[in-house]
């Protein structure tokens, strides 16, 4: 009897044979290679010289240099060799690197403020969208709200066209309100776009948390808000993490509005990167360096939240 059971489980679809497992493993590795390769190429390009970066056939093995990063962070001017010869010896390694190309560093580039803009606008709008989304989702999930279904549909309908479709009205509005090229303006814009996604995703998660938990807390002495903070939120962490990642990825990568609405003060990384101009064309190593740095925060954020993410994406699907 037990032998029969054992045999039947051995043939179940759950338990794959070693060969199938090896095949599956190989597929996963292949897929990983395909997805990671462009990223690796960018990371490598950042360490190439300008000529190596555009060499044909492409160079896989090359002499690494930090020129790309130096060019990214500095503004340089070309000088005559005589002028450079007359200068005092270079003080730092990057001065030296630049002078090899008959140039001197004129000052820092704008990459740091642009990066700071991206961080503030990206995380700021993510926080706001998740914050507002959580409150709204909780209310929709727990209270009897008149016209709740219509309101939810209205919230969802803001996602029914690409946000850029309303770029011109928004541009005109922002000009009236003096919000163009401000961090506040960009945070508000990205929050508005993300909040509908946040409400819908989080409502699904909060619906799945039994009401009894907070009711128990209400009876035991908490106010509604305390119950939300101390009882509901800890259980919604998964959903909040998943939602936050989706929101951050959107506002971090957003390009169209950023091009249209920011040019100086509040410019984020996406519109900045393509315009890193080198001498006689794109400075590809500098672009690659900027891209590498640009990817780092989002990778870190996702890795930090990844243990919540898997559960968050597979569970808590929307349901009515």
């Amino acid at each position, binding site marked *: 009897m037990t032998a029969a059971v054992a045999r039947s489980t051995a043939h179940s679809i759950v338990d794959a044979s070693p060969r199938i497992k090896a095949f599956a493993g190989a597929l996963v590795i292949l897929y990983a290679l395909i997805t990671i390769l462009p990223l690796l190429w960018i990371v490598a390009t950042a360490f190439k010289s300008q000529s190596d970066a555009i060499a044909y056939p492409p160079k896989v093995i090359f002499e690494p240099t930090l020129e790309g990063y130096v060019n990214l962070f500095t503004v340089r001017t070309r000088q005559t060799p005589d002028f450079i010869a007359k200068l005092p010896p270079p003080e730092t390694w990057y001065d030296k690197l630049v002078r090899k190309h008959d140039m001197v560093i004129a000052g820092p580039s704008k990459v740091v403020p642009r990066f700071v803009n991206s961080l503030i606008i990206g995380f700021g709008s993510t926080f706001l969208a998740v914050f507002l989304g959580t409150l709204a989702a909780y209310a929709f999930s727990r209270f009897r709200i008149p016209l709740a279904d219509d309101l939810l549909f209205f919230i969802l309908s803001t996602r029914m066209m690409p946000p850029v479709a309303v770029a011109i009205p928004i541009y005109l509005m922002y000009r009236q309100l003096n919000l163009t090229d401000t961090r506040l303006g960009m945070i508000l814009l990205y929050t508005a776009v993300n909040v509908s996604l946040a409400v819908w995703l989080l409502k699904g998660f909060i619906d799945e948390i039994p009401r*009894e938990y907070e*009711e128990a807390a209400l*009876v*035991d002495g908490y106010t509604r808000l305390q119950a939300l903070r101390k009882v509901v939120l800890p259980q919604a962490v998964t959903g909040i993490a998943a939602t936050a990642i989706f929101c951050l990825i959107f506002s971090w990568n957003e390009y169209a509005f950023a091009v249209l609405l920011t040019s100086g003060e509040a410019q984020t990384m996406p519109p900045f990167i393509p315009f890193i101009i080198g001498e006689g064309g794109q400075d590809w190593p500098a672009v690659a360096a900027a891209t590498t740095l640009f990817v780092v925060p989002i990778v870190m954020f996702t890795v930090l939240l990844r243990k919540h993410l898997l559960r968050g994406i597979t569970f808590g699907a929307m349901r009515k």
Partner: protein
Amino acid sequence: MAQIRIEYLRKSFDQFTAVEGSTFTIDDGTFFALLGPSGCGKTTTLRMIAGLELPTEGKILLDGEDVTFHRAAARDIAFVFQLFALYPHMNVGQNIGFPLKCQGMARHEIRERVQETARMLRIEHLLSSKTAKLSGGDRQRVALGRAMVRRPKAFLMDEPLGALDAEFRHLMCGELRDLHDRIKATTVYVTHDQLEAMSMADQIAIMNKGRVEQIGTPQEVYDRPACMFVADFIGSPSMNFLHFEGGLRSGDRAINFHDTRLAVPEIREDRASAALALGVRPEHIRFADAGSVRGEVFGAEYLGTTQIVTIDTAYGRVAARLPSSASVRIGETVGLEFNSDRLSLFDAGSGLAIRTAREEGMRHG
């Protein structure tokens, strides 16, 4: 501990009325069961007492104080949920201590109270375990502990044993009742299981479609049901109803049941001829060759000490509880005799019981 008084309590959700103007008092220290089929309004009533739901009309008084619109937390009552609602991110000790933490009690005091409560429930060894790893019964004990630790005025329990398996439910019934006897707290217990209500409660309120149909001790509601709904709901198998037409006169000790005379408890009210029903509990039926009601045996369920025999009569199918030693053959024609002083009479139209000598001292809801 406290007395709970409900006055004309009504609750409607949009078009639907969940609870309809019930009024009753739960005395201090009583184990009070709210019993009824699902959707009868018992849970809504309990949630209104707890403050988790606001009534549309009516009043709730705790020890004479009107708490109808007080916040749940301000009522000093504890609620035990069917799904236990133990916080998954806390261990057992933290769960039990949670209500005290909400009140801002000092940490060492919380620890003492939690220990004491755990001792009472015999779950001291579990205090640092995760709730997810506990068995159903232990979860239930933790949920009870969380309710007890605050020493509230009253306990409200919403089908607390509903999630346990049958065998364990029986054990927990005993434990709950024992606990109640020790701490003597006013307890309102919602259940749809008549066995739980009958075995634990001092008083049972039977609800149907938002109304309280009858309130009484388990014995009262079983022996002297106020209406056909209660008679039918309490008891398993439920009471047999034999329909007939006739008039009643106060003082009569027998009725004209179709073609025969049947002895009944002394009737205490006059009735013009109307559709009536004779209520007979299965255990008050005997086989007797001379019995005036005759029928054919349809089937028999063997239950160990007794058997339930169903008989097709001219007035409908009747269930009788007979000793398992009685020999019963399916298809045979038998005569039935009723235990005349245990019969009930109902007005088949309104469903209300007709007053007889048996019903004295009964309370209508």
